[in-house]
């Protein structure tokens, strides 16, 4: 018998509407799995069982009355970076370990209106800074494919939860690859939309010009369903873009014949493991069979992505995290002797090592005398990288390459070596710097660990990306693989 957690979000949604099962049944089923499996995985920081059952009850009533939203009754987990009214919102940090948000983030509000049922809040790297989910104050998250391995980061909790079938979808955020890299490392479809496509209001900022909310799901179709209700202009976010939200689901089945795929030359050079490269080449062959054309393209400035990112992102984070000062909310040190002591100890004790490293880097690159050499120069390189992408998209419809240079690595393997850790994001950062939509889909596995294929598109080409991913998923079954022990 097919169990409820074997169904995709689209299938669950259909079943709910056909009244084959109720939302309360679904919520109970997934909450039971969370209760059983989460203690090992550490994927969730907060489980909102009571609220979930109440929301499911309401969803069932709406479904019965025929007035339900598009996703009514579908269980979901929110990354703990999104503010949720009346619910603990920690951002994976001791700094916010006591912070109950007084409002809903725009995407939380929009998805609630659509009828989703929040089961809990997902673990994450502290303030979304990390690529392995090891910087969380709540401890590392384990990869359900191999409990010794990391699930990737920063959306590691969201990825582990969906991969372990604790929910059919989790929200996530991507500043330098934090949706796509965990998707690749846990065998999921991870979509980072165009910068400005989804509101950032209520999403605790890491690097404002790079942060973008998206989804972790089993399939591209599931991502299309959720994005349709998440996306859109928000008057509370000046950087959100006022452009219509297309019907991503309707566009999924466009034929891929004649699709021009750009192969990023720079992505197949250097640190890419051969076993991963082989799987990517096989995936490309699938596209060729579907009638796509492969064209090698070069983005000469792309190798500068990592250094550029590690100037821009820390600079913005150093300023964004200044509000955590122990004065109005969050962690406050015991018995401060004066104002400076309050600041120093609250921030010193409230933030973890990686966050402090980035605040210090960012403070340095913005300082008088260094601003031009670092921040300004990085912004110029960012412009060059964006231009490189724009030129490439004059030739091709989408770009493809690996998401991550290697499959999931061991917990603890890179924690003492930040540079190696940062290089993990080498293939994903470019899309953030240029504000482009990108997704990762599973395309095979190496030694039992999933590998992701990355697809990058021009601005606001989410419908095309999902269409291209869906075409592949019609031909393959990698996205249906469930880690052992979680079937």
């Amino acid at each position, binding site marked *: 018998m097919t169990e409820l957690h074997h169904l995709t979000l689209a299938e669950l949604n259909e079943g709910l509407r056909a009244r084959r099962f109720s939302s309360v049944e679904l919520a109970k089923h997934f909450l039971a799995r969370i209760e059983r499996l989460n203690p090992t995985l550490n994927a969730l920081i907060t489980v909102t069982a009571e609220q979930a059952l109440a929301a499911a009850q309401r969803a069932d009533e709406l479904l019965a009355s025929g007035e339900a939203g598009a996703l009514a009754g579908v269980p979901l987990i929110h990354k703990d970076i*999104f*503010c949720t009214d009346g619910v603990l*919102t920690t*951002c994976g940090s001791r700094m*916010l370990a006591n*912070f109950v*948000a*007084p*409002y809903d*983030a725009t995407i939380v509000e929009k998805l609630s209106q659509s009828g989703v049922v929040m089961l809990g809040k997902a673990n994450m790297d502290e303030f979304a800074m990390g690529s392995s989910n090891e910087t969380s104050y709540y401890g590392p998250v384990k990869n359900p494919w191999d409990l010794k391995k990391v699930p990737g980061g920063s959306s590691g909790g969201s990825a582990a939860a969906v991969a372990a079938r604790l929910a059919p979808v989790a929200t996530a955020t991507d500043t330098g690859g934090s949706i796509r890299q965990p998707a690749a490392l846990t065998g999921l479809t991870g979509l980072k939309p165009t910068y400005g496509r989804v509101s*950032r*209001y*209520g*999403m*605790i*900022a890491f*690097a*404002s*010009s790079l942060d973008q909310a998206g989804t972790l799901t089993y399939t591209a179709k599931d991502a299309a369903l959720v994005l349709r209700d998440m996306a859109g202009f928000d*008057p*509370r*976010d*000046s*950087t959100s873009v006022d452009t219509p939200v297309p019907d991503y689901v309707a566009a999924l089945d466009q034929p891929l014949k004649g699709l021009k795929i750009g192969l990023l030359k720079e992505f197949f050079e250097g640190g890419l493991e051969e076993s991963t490269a082989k799987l990517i080449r096989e995936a490309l062959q699938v596209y060729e069979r579907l009638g796509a054309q492969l064209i090698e393209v070069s983005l000469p400035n792309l190798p500068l992505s990592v250094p550029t990112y590690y100037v821009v992102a820390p*600079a*913005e984070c*150093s*300023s964004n*995290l*200044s*509000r*955590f*000062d122990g*004065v*109005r*909310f*969050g962690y406050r040190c015991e018995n401060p002797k004066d*104002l400076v002591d309050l*600041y120093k100890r609250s921030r010193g004790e409230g933030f973890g090592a990686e966050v402090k490293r980035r605040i210090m880097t960012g*403070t340095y690159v*913005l*300082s*008088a005398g260094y*601003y031009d050499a670092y*921040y300004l120069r990085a912004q110029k390189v960012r412009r060059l990288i964006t231009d490189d992408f724009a030129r490439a998209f004059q030739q091709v419809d989408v770009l493809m390459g690996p998401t991550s240079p290697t499959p999931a690595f061991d917990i603890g393997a890179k924690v003492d070596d930040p540079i190696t850790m940062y290089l993990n994001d080498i293939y994903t950062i470019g899309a953030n710097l240029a504000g482009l939509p990108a997704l990762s889909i599973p395309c095979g596995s190496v030694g039992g660990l999933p590998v992701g294929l990355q697809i990058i598109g021009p601005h606001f080409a989410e419908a095309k990306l999902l269409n291209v991913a869906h075409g592949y998923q019609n031909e393959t079954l990698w996205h249906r693989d469930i880690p052992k022990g979680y079937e």
Partner: protein
Amino acid sequence: MMSWETVIGLEIHAQLATRSKIFSSAATAYGAAPNAQANLVDLGYPGVLPVLNREAVRMAVKFGLAIGAQISPRSVFARKNYFYPDLPKGYQISQYEKPVVEKGTMQILLEDGTIKVVGITRAHLEEDAGKSLHEDFHGASGIDLNRAGTPLLEIVSEPDMRSAKEAVAYLKKIHTLVRYLEICDGNMQEGSFRCDANVSVRPVGQEKFGTRCEIKNLNSFRYIEKAINYEVARQIEEIEAGRKIKQETRLFDPDKGETRSLRSKEEANDYRYFPDPDLLPVVIEKDFIESVRGTLPELPDQKAARYIEKFGLSAYDAGVLTASREMGDYYEGVLAALKSKNLEGNEKLAANWTMGELSAALNKDGVEVTESKIDASRLAGLLARIADETISGKIAKEVFESMWAEGKDADAIIEAKGLKQITDTGAIEKTIDEVMAANPKQLADYRSGKDKLFGFFVGQVMKVTGGKANPAQVNDLLKKKLAG
């Protein structure tokens, strides 16, 4: 003894009179209970984002147009980073490299009657911080964030002023202008209009500027003049004693009438300015500028020029009458009321009364012209009686006082007190005849050549009529009658 020249530049912070804050929807009204007007954006909560208030931009553009400045087609908000409890986000959103307004000018009238042009380097938009309250908290500090996020226009002048008086004249002109434009209420006590002064001295004839000090906390015209004069004297004394001026920020203490060091340049923060990634650049289209231009009122200088040209007023009088929009409105209200009585051509009379009796009465009661106990049409009613010679100017002052005290029309008071001027020739002639009959000796002396006695007869006639006889008529008729 060396002689010194003072160099002053001013930074004015004008609080823009928007209903809501510059980046949030919270109200800006003054005087609410602490933190009652601070929403999650003002409190800098995790996840919230700023959204620019279009009205603040409109007001900045209006100011820019009024000073003949360039309006930047693209200006940028930056973050000024520093830690302070009344700065909730740990940074202030302000315009740094690309302000919305650049390169304007303001004319000031110097004491010798010449006009000086003061350059305005820039005017930029920014958010205000909150307030730290150090009293009443028993060793702790209270934070009131009602003011946090209030829109400010920071108006930065060139170092063009050469005395405290010039600085005050410039400040008053800006103060007048922002109120004319209705972009700031100008209330200095409530802090809606504040000023910092950059002051330095240099030997007369030297081109290079001396080291400057920035004086903060100047919230009245009187303090500014005092503070600058104190600071100039201090700097000269330092230099003449062989010491160097240190570049620093100084605070004016109004109780002691002196400035004291707050922090030196070395102690100043590195603000780590960078463009705010939460806000898009402010793009201002030509159409928007033109629509704002269409809302500009007649500006003080334009109005003064019109008064001089059309009404024949002096530059000084025109300056006084245009110093506030309300005063000009009052004056023109008087003229309009006179016109409706077909009494045009009394602009100087109206100017004299508005600036003289009326202003004195307002000052005495400490009220604004908009709260005057004699409104423009009532004052016109009084002036009409002077113009049609119902009463003399001297009697009019008496009537004015009664009007102010009793709140009645001029005519009612003239009637009730019987102050109506006697213009009936027959009546005056009758009085003259009586006076001549009662003073035969003086009459004989006058007629034998003692011309000086003419004044005596005028006095007698006025005395008998209780001062109400029309003086010109008395003169004419007396001359004829005395001649025999």
